[in-house]
């Protein structure tokens, strides 16, 4: 069962969105997030929602899969919405009991914020659905490379990310092994109160720590044997290359922003 976990959540199909250069994709995602923030009325927001649905459609990632990432945050969204409903006291009062007033603008804001957060999550998760972890870390390394000027070791950061991703499944397997080993010695992990349960984690955590340090030193040693000395003078097999798809993506983004600005201007009556 543990063998089934995949790194990140890459969804392997061929689509235009998959084809976009990961660097461009990250930049466009950031712009998209800003654009979502810019929408200040329901009409603009509706428009953005349509463009996002369109992007999802282009990516060929099934909606069922996307819904999974929405499910993960649904409680946070409900919670924030409730706060908005109960504590926003402007607008016409609809129901009132005690200190709590529910107003029409409170409900509107709650819905608005909820939609906004959902769109945030959908568009961000689309990046990880359509980009392999390798490409993602490569792109981050490239995008952060200007930071080299202020002496940030960008290569090492990217290398750490890669190794972390690489070792997550290994560590999970290790936890599984240690848990079984402790159970075989009679450790009881399933019963008792919170305090007892937390205590029962310690016999797993300590061996895990020790074995990770061991793995780390083995790995460092193996990397050294393979001539690794950091990012200096290193080449890459996989070259990121921009194509026409990236230009189309940029144009699409540009059109979305332009429409946004126009809609924000003319639909100010629907402002929140």
């Amino acid at each position: 069962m543990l063998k089934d976990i995949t790194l990140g959540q890459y969804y392997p199909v061929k689509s235009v969105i998959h084809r976009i250069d990961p660097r461009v994709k990250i930049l466009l995602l950031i712009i998209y997030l800003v654009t979502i923030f810019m929408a200040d009325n329901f009409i603009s927001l509706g428009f953005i929602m349509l463009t996002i649905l369109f992007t999802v459609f282009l990516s060929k990632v099934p909606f069922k899969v996307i819904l999974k990432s929405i499910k993960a945050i649904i409680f946070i969204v409900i919670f924030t919405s409730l706060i908005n409903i109960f504590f926003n006291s402007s607008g016409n009062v609809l129901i009132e009991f005690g200190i709590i007033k529910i107003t029409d603008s409170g409900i509107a804001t709650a819905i608005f914020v909820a939609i906004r957060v959902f769109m945030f999550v959908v568009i961000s998760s689309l990046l990880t659905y359509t980009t392999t972890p390798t490409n993602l870390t490569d792109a981050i390394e490239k995008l952060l490379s200007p930071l080299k000027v202020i002496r940030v070791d960008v290569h090492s950061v990217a290398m750490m990310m890669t190794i972390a991703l690489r070792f997550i499944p290994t560590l999970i397997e290790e936890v599984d092994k240690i848990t079984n080993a402790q159970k075989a010695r009679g450790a009881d992990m399933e019963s008792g109160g919170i305090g007892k349960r937390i205590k029962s984690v310690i016999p797993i955590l300590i061996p895990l720590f020790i074995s990770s340090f061991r793995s780390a030193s083995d790995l460092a040693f193996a990397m050294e044997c393979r001539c690794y000395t950091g990012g200096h003078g290193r080449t890459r097999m996989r070259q990121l290359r921009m194509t026409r798809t990236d230009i189309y993506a940029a144009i699409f983004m540009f059109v979305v922003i332009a429409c946004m600005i126009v809609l924000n201007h003319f639909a100010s009556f629907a402002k929140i």
Partner: protein
Amino acid sequence: MENIIEFNNVSCSYEDVDGNKTPAVQGIDLRIKKGDYIAVLGHNGSGKSTFAKLCNAILLPDENMGTVIVNGINTVNDEQIFEIRQNVGMVFQNPDNQIVATIVEDDVAFGPENIGIEPSEIRRRVDDALTKVGMYEYRMSEPHKLSGGQKQRVAIAGIIAMQPNCIIFDESTSMLDPKGRQEVLSTIDYLNQELGITVVLITHYMDEAVRAKEIVVMNNGEVILKGTPREIFSNVEKLKLIGLDVPQVTEIAFELNKHGFNFSEGILTIDDFIREFKI
């Protein structure tokens, strides 16, 4: 023939916290020729791994205590360390702890990337290396989804992609199941026989050592025996004395000889045994 690795009376010691030095290997004098297939035997702590680390300049001999020459380069030469490590690759025990990347082919590319090879050439080498170890169809897989033997073959491909003259296997089969072991061993044989790569196989398994052309036996940091498998395993008593086993057939023949049989010394395979038994 040329020597790929040359040990001239080498000693090497680790320093403990108090600054005391205990030699892990001492007085090693050894020549490994290009194309050789050498097995290194010895019980735990006999200095096998230390010997391996001396071969690719991870460790250096103690000062004035001998020299290690790899392909004509003294390992103390700091500037040529890349050349040394590219020439002498190493595969370790735990396959999980030597794979760096999240995708098989990226991992194989890691070594060539480090020494600054052109991207198109890396591509060619990676495909070539993966084909040689029979893992080409798994090139896009995630390492954690492979079996132990497959992971170990990926690790070997990562070394082959650097086009080394020599590969050292430090107990590379000891964590594998019998099937994985067989896969890796036949890959190693292929590397040596078909590609002419020098192989140094450090192992605890006697039946693995038998595959080599020459065996080196280490004890307490010293080389105490050296010779063909037949020569080595003729010394059943000496090997037992330092806590090593001999292959099962060899032992049976040895014990039978004590009871008046007349097997020749150092019988290694069941086939040989049967042949002599019939006569």
